[in-house]
């Protein structure tokens, strides 16, 4: 991602943001409320256009100023939204199944994959339940199963603390070893969790460090 900028009217959310995410790594993007975390994820997913800058996935240009170069479903990524975005009239099984609409598998193979992922998420017994009949935790697992089922190269989790229980970034090392702190529309600092914990520069990490014991990485 290079020099990304995005504004909604006069409200500039991202300003000259540049960063990269390494393959096979988990990255925790953190920052205060309204700093643009969700916007950044939506730009990566191709749900919004950029005002400035470029985004590349595996070296290929996917978004540039004012233009979606590669459609969202062709980027090889999946996303769990903050409000989960489950289709309310479909069962848990159907939600995951419809998410595989573009995956080139036979219907039987798709069904097997859906069953396997629901089993991995401990949702087999609730496969026929619709979202309104599930608890919030169960809904989160269905949303995660739907995202995982397509076997994405890049999995975006908006507010993962809600889905994966953790809240404080220093407690989140079970899901992430790399952290990037987004403040005032740009990346204030980034690196491994251990490095940043020792010498935090951003207000976000300084505040959290004061609350937490050093993480074990």
């Amino acid at each position: 991602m290079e020099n990304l900028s995005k504004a909604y009217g006069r409200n500039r959310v991202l300003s000259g943001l540049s960063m990269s995410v390494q393959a096979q790594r988990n990255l925790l993007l953190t920052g205060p409320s309204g700093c643009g975390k969700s916007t950044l994820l939506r730009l990566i997913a191709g749900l919004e256009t950029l005002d400035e800058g470029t985004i590349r996935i595996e070296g290929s240009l996917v978004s540039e100023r004012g233009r979606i170069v590669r459609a969202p479903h062709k980027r090889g990524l999946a996303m769990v939204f903050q409000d989960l975005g489950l289709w309310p009239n479909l069962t848990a099984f159907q939600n995951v199944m419809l998410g595989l609409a573009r995956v080139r598998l036979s219907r039987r193979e798709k069904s097997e994959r859906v069953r396997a992922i629901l089993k991995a998420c401990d949702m087999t017994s609730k496969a026929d339940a619709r979202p309104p009949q599930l608890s919030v935790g169960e809904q989160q697992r269905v949303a995660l199963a739907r995202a995982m089922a397509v076997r994405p190269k890049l999995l975006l989790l908006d507010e993962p603390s809600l889905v994966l229980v953790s809240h404080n970034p220093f407690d989140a090392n079970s899901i992430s070893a790399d952290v990037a702190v987004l403040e005032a529309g740009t990346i204030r600092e980034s690196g491994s969790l251990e490095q940043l914990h020792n010498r935090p520069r951003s207000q976000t990490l300084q505040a959290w460090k004061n609350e937490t014991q050093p993480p074990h990485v």
Partner: protein
Amino acid sequence: MRLASLSAKVRQAIDWRLPVTAAILSAAFLPILWSVISSLKAESLPEMLGMLHGPFLGALRRSLILMTAVVAGSLAVGWPGGTLLGLVEFPGRRVLLASLAVPLFTPSFLWAIGLSSFRPFLAYRHQWWLDGFPGAFLTGVVQTFPLVVFAALLGARTLPASLLEAAQLAGGFWGFFKASSRFSLPAGLGASVLGGVLALADPGPAQIMGYHGIASEILIAFSARYDAGLAARKALLMTMVLLPVVLAVSWKVSLWSEARLLGREMRKANRRFEGILPAVTVLGFVFIYVALLSPALVGLTRPLKGAQTADALQYGLTVLKQSAGTTLRYGFTAAVVATVLGIVLSLTCGRCHPFRLTVLLFSFLVLSLPPSLHALGFAGMAAQLPKSFDWFMRGGNAVGIAFGLRLSPIPALFCLRAWSVMPESCHQVAVLHGVPAFQYLWRVALPQLAPAMAGSLLLVALVSIADVSSTLLLLPPGAGTFTSRIFGVIDNASERILSGLCVVYVLSGFILVGFFAIVEALWRRRLGGSR
């Protein structure tokens, strides 16, 4: 919303959604525009304004007084009533709501007949209460207040649960009610103005109660003097007088609806209350409801006494049987046309703020303008267009299509609401997973819109069937709906026969609404409860 963001959204939507939306809105508005242009062609504006004297001006004044009174009366009863029904769950609530829907689908002249027929129960010196202005006013309120109830109910239901709970904690049931009432006022006001305009444009009650208004002037110009142009000019003059009010209310209600009614999905609040105050308030509303409706219902059944009662009812059933085909055909065509247009409008608008605002403004405007202006424009267009248009501009199809076009804002509003309460992320997940548009529409979007579609189909069909003023303007020779057949014999049939016809109509309304209420309850049960 900022201008830059607004224009970006318009640019995004401009590809295919703009022409589709513009085409549907133009189709709904075109007959009105036709009426206006053809009237101005036939006579210049100063010449037309010359009509504003003598009997015409008197009729206009009477109609405006009636409209103001109906707006105030229906708002006074319907606004608190609707807020209450939106807030409180109690046994029998659904039955009460279903019965409230019946006056909406019943022609106003029928309530006027009932009230007029109730007069002999009163002492002679009190009979003026149900004659002239008071009679027309009561008829208007009986017809309009359920609309206000439903609008206020919908408004109260859109209040976020957290707001309701905060109000409840701060001030108990009374605080809760006051907070909600303020919130539901714009919807109630919009509905009462709409009802007031419809009361003003309705010739039926005026004819029965002897309160000669502008609607009677238009009907006489068309059906007694056979001068469609004069009728259109009178309708246009009436519209010009109403336009400032209609525009102001439409704008205000559109802004409110866009922000509130089409808001995001919200958590449902607990609506069960214990204690005396909620129970007394509900009982109070039920008492007012019964007090308003019962004189007309009792009046309708008064002549049905003695040996000839069965004959009168039998006659009513025979007329119903004879006209059922035509009535259902018009209602069905109108419902299908309006619902299809409404669904397309809601899908094209999506969550685009300027589109939704435009559609809402047009919707309230089309619904609030006198129906006769639309019907006369449609008839005028049919007369001018080539023969190849006859299959849908003239004859039986024309009535249903004209109603469908005029009432298309109803399904549009219903579907916009249903579409908007679905989180945006649902659509975005489909985009991310590359779910084909048709598959998404079939598997997710249409099932989500299904209750709104079913409600719209029923509402448009019943409103079309109950209408008499536009039907009389568009009906092909020899054809007749059940409503127009009753209207046609008001002046010459015996009281008993008329009463038989009206009772059959009201009973049919209750049976239909009851049937759909049961279907809706079964549908909800099938979907299962939520946690």
